[in-house]
């Protein structure tokens, strides 16, 4: 619900500009707090990892991870494009790229699900050892973020179709974009940390 | 505005703590149990230094507050001075505390280095401590000076150490975090499962129970030798794991049990020593102990996780070591748990 729709008042362009600045600040603050959330996990992981001999090789399938990395990077691209076109007021393309991003997110989760299935089949439950504990903790919370992002994307796609957004008012897409890129960023660190190093 | 005599109340209340503090000024002995190690005395010393500083700041700040309330009360005709502050005053009021704080920091850093980084010099007595819910287990290496051999001396709930020698405790836990607290030695170290902690201290007094005054007194080795002290006649280590039992006692019974430990075994023969020789005089003192406390929350019976340290003259200490006869149960804790945990350490020690 945009402020305009809800309050039946005409809002000046100046209002939109200020409101956008507020929303951006809000999301950056939220992302700052997300950084700290993952800081705790990563800090813990660093401690555990550096206590293990460096020669230890991670017991994961690198290629699944790499595939997912590419999927997420691609979704970042499509998201960036969606934001770009929403700013131009190009509703069709915005919708298309939002849908693509959504699909790529689905892809990511499907791959993750395949991997999880393999782990479970091999008996690698979170309780198996400290590594799998961290693996499921980190990917699990990352996955939850992906899921949250997908819900947001779905809602935005629908609102975009309904015509809520235009050249002047497209902050929600931009904000969702920032969030989505952040989810991508987390994965960019998770991938080498869990699969490669 | 009706004048409310609030300040008189304020005065009374504010200076009650100040008075109490003043009592404290007379020295650590008022509330703090006397320190029995050099480091302990150092810590008390630092404590008192900070105390003097803090009391001065306390009196000045609270006094000024009070003075302001009284002196600057609004009355008809009185106008507040209009000022946004004074950089000069503020700088002074920042620099002076900074200097004081620097002093505290330097003193603390020096002592901290002594406490944490200095190594015990002579050949210390080494004792392994294994904490568990809710008791303290001790192991000493025995005559062969190697841990993990059959001549190890194992005890639970109580440990003996020689007076005037450095004692190193290697501490670990088999379950949750405990904290190894020797109040009179000012030693405290968390006992973290999975880690091996190390603390050391030196007792230079022997705790004995004065039968006349019914108080614990602390004797130096020389004083101890000169006085008639009952050294046996009660079991030094009567209860391997008394902790859970205390809780079942009624309150008064528990206190009696603790206070008059040695009365529980009236038939035992009394051995009274003076100048190292048995004498036939009524004893003036009975050997006593220091307490070990657990100061980290470790479960429902945390409050009862007590242990004792007997500080003994060297010959008594040897006798104590010989007297320990652990049962299989105690033995199994060490072979079954500790030796699995810390194989490397046993060799390293």
């Amino acid at each position, binding site marked *: 619900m945009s402020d305009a729709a809800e309050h039946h008042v005409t809002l000046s362009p100046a209002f939109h500009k200020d409101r956008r600045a507020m929303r951006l600040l809000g999301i950056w603050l939220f992302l700052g707090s997300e950084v700290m959330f993952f800081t705790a996990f990563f800090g813990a992981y660093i401690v555990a990892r550096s206590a293990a001999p460096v020669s230890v090789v991670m017991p994961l399938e690198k290629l699944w991870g790499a595939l997912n990395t590419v999927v997420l990077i691609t979704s970042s691209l499509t998201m960036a494009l969606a934001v770009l076109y929403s700013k131009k007021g190009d509703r069709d393309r915005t919708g298309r790229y939002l849908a693509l991003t959504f699909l790529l997110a689905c892809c990511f989760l499907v791959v993750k699900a395949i991997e999880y299935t393999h782990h479970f089949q091999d008996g690698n439950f979170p309780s198996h050892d400290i590594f799998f504990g961290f693996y499921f903790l980190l990917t699990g919370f990352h996955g939850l973020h992906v899921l949250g992002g997908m819900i947001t994307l779905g809602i935005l796609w629908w609102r975009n179709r309904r015509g809520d957004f235009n050249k002047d008012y497209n902050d929600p897409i931009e904000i969702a974009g920032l969030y989505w890129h952040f989810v991508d960023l987390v994965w960019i660190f998770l991938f080498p940390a869990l699969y*490669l190093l | 505005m009706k004048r409310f005599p609030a300040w008189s109340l304020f005065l009374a209340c504010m200076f009650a703590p100040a008075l109490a503090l003043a009592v404290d000024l007379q020295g650590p002995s008022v509330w703090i149990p006397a320190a029995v190690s050099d480091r302990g005395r150092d810590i008390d010393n630092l404590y008192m230094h900070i105390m003097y500083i803090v009391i001065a700041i306390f009196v000045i700040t609270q006094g000024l507050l009070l003075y302001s309330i009284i002196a600057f009360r609004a009355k008809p005709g009185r106008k507040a001075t209009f000022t946004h502050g004074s950089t000069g005053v503020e700088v002074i009021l920042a620099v002076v505390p900074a200097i004081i704080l620097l002093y505290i920091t330097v003193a603390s850093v020096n002592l901290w280095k002594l406490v944490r980084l200095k190594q015990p010099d002579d050949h210390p007595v080494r004792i392994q401590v294994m904490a568990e819910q809710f008791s303290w287990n001790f192991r000493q290496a025995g005559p062969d000076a190697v841990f993990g051999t059959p001549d190890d001396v194992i005890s639970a709930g109580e440990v003996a150490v020689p007076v005037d020698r450095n004692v190193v405790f290697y501490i670990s836990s088999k379950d949750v975090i405990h904290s190894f607290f020797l109040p009179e030695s000012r030693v405290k170290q968390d006992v973290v499962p999975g880690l091996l902690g190390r603390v050391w201290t030196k007792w230079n007094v022997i705790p004995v129970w004065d039968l006349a005054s019914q108080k614990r007194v602390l004797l130096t080795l020389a004083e101890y030798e000169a006085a008639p002290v009952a050294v046996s006649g009660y079991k030094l280590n009567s209860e391997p794991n008394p902790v859970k039992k205390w809780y079942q006692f009624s309150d008064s019974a528990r206190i009696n049990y603790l206070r008059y430990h040695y009365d529980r075994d009236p038939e035992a023969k009394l051995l009274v020593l003076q100048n190292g020789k048995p004498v036939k005089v009524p004893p003036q003192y009975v050997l006593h102990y220091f307490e070990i406390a657990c100061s980290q929350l470790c479960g429902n019976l945390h409050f009862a996780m007590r242990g004792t340290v007997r500080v003994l003259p060297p010959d008594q200490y040897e006798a104590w070591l010989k007297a320990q006869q652990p049962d299989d149960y105690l033995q199994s804790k060490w072979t079954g748990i500790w030796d699995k945990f810390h194989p490397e350490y046993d060799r390293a020690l």
Partner: protein
Amino acid sequence: MTQQDHSSEHSDAVLYAEIFGLLVALTVLTVTLSYVNVGAAIGLPQFGRTANIVAGLLVAACKCSLVLWVFMHMNHENGTNRFVLFFAVCLMGVFFIGTSLDFEWLGTYTHGFARAALGL
């Protein structure tokens, strides 16, 4: 705030595509790196896999900055928002350094059994 006047949508889209290409390339790079012994490759064999870890994290940091800078528009973000992120990252550093230093010390206490026990 006048940074909003983008030259044209086309050039932005191209820029994004270029960044995307770079990101994919870097991903390929990290994966490849994980198969080689980076330490030996750069002539410092004594570092062995430690060099791999450093290299891997460096590549990740590069990717991270690309996404931040371009996709997340840090390049035309205002000071406040930049500061928010900067401050959070500083705190992250403080936490990492603090805990790592402590655990490095604790590691000297724990003597091997904790390492072996990591089960990796």
